[in-house]
């Protein structure tokens, strides 16, 4: 009924011939709106590059790629390596949690679970994905760290281990749902062929489905690393702001994202070297995630098996 009313109104409008000019003008309006996303990207790249350029006029590249980070001391140093080290270590811990759990959960959902169980479990997994990261940060700091302290007495109140683990839980739904999508898109005929030869479900999953879906699974891992590297609040809260260059995950270490948050919420006045260092670190972070995302797209295109 509603549909018919619409069509009638449409005819009436057309008779009035009023819409001719709007019909020509609207695509231009839509194009302008569509270009906002492109302008946003250009804006991000421009702000990062211009302000990072001002930073590199004051700080030598050799100082930037050093392990000495002391932005607030009287003789400030802006070595980014401690930040990169912290970022990579926390992300690796996260992956150590998310990859085995995520892949096995995806195998279960895609190959073993009945339709009813899957319909029950998938929305709950999505719930896990919908929890804001600040909540995970609070959880890491106020629950996981004290819990880990009972196991590892030397653990500091702020450390890399606890946010790494919680970050793993955070990216777990991403790994699970993307890997599951990849595995489910493997044609049923391939599974049936393997079943026909007398394989068990496990053998079909490990020897047929995973090799066939490997491009999607690898892409999900890379996207998960990218998400972990860009994650901010968990590491800011639970990993602290120590600027030491260390591989000891029981100690506090700062990530690139946490550095940006610490410095902006501090009193970095506009125009100081410290203020511009934000953009240099932001540029590095942007490049890291961009490269990983392009890699994920490349992997899923290049190694896709077409059936």
């Amino acid at each position: 009924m509603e549909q018919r009313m619409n069509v009638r109104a449409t005819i009436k409008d057309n008779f009035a011939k009023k819409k001719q000019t709007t019909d020509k003008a609207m695509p231009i309006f839509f194009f302008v709106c569509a270009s906002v996303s492109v302008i946003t990207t250009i804006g991000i790249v421009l702000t990062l590059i211009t302000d990072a350029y001002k930073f590199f006029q004051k700080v030598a590249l050799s100082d930037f790629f050093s392990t000495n980070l002391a932005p607030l001391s009287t003789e400030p140093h802006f070595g980014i390596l401690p930040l990169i080290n912290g970022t990579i270590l926390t992300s690796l811990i996260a992956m150590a949690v998310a990859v085995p759990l995520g892949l096995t959960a995806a195998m279960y959902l895609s190959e073993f679970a009945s339709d009813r169980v899957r319909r029950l479990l998938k929305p709950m997994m999505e719930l896990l994905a919908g929890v804001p990261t600040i909540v995970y940060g609070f959880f890491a700091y106020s629950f996981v760290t004290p819990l880990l302290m009972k196991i590892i007495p030397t653990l500091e109140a702020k450390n890399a281990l606890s946010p790494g683990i919680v970050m793993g839980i955070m990216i777990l739904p991403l790994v699970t749902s993307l890997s599951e999508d990849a595995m489910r898109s493997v044609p049923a005929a391939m599974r049936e062929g393997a079943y026909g030869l007398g394989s068990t479900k496990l053998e079909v999953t490990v020897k047929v489905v995973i090799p066939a879906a490997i491009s999607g699974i690898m892409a999900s891992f890379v996207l998960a690393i990218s998400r972990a590297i860009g994650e901010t609040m968990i590491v800011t809260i639970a990993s602290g702001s120590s600027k030491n260059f260390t591989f000891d995950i029981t100690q506090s270490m700062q990530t690139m994202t946490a550095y940006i948050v610490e410095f902006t919420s501090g009193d970095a006045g506009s125009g100081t070297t410290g203020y511009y260092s934000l953009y240099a670190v932001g540029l590095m972070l942007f490049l890291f995630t961009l490269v990983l995302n392009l890699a994920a797209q490349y992997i899923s295109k290049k190694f896709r098996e077409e059936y």
Partner: protein
Amino acid sequence: MINYELKLNPTEAEKEYKIDINKRRIDRRILLNNILKKVFFLSMVFALAVLGLLLYRIGIQSIGWLDVQFLTGKLSIFPEKAGIWGAIIGSIGLICVVIPVTLVIGVSTAIYLEEYATQGKIASFIKVNLSNLASVPSVIFGLLGLSLFGRLFHLGSSILAGGLTLSLLVLPIVVVSSQEAIKSVPNFLREASYGMGADKWTTIRKVVLPVALPGILTGAILSISRAIGETAPLVVLGIPTLIMKIPKSFMDDFTALPIQIYYWTLDTVLTPEYANLAAATIIVLLVTLFLMNSVAIFIRNKYQRGF
């Protein structure tokens, strides 16, 4: 091990030996299958158990703190007197900026991509750009907001600056879900409209958009639930730590629910009761998100039309 060599006349003992050894092999494979099936299920359960533990812990911590006084009171440095009314108003203010901005720009972009420029270099460039923009870390959007809205447009750390920053952040989500919704409108509806003599814009306005509306709304709600949980971009904008005033206009400084959680979590070292306040705020935030997601699912199920 097993001799598969065909014998013309195998003895009974040889036959039995072969059957026996094959049976044992098969039993072992089935056993492995059954054990690993349970292991995979457990990793799925583990992820959900963490979610349950998180909710339980935070729920316990918020007991006794979550009351009317807490919801409607003003911010205070004394934990017993502190309330989050200002943060609630701030979050609502953010939503009031994000909804119109993302809906207009996001839906227009989707219309442009799906109705006007379905092929061609510009459209594919915008699509690639959107997918890359979606994976830029949120803290980078904070840096963009800081230089663009905060300093260039002199919006400082107002609700408007925060809302615009979050709008750019969630724009890709709105575009992609609107694209899906518009794509799912069957072509015969459009053709019927054209057949009646309607022009393109009238067809979009009166046929395509009404049919696609539930999908668009679902995406919009999901993007808003992402926006109100987002912390990092707002912290980077430089939201002051302690804001006692309730914001009155979009140009006022503000605090929002996730920011309040962040600052209270940071200050638990000084005042342990702040952890309870943070937990209570988390419950408010999670309940809001849960309600919004339920509405989204309700809309999707209720108004989804099949053609």
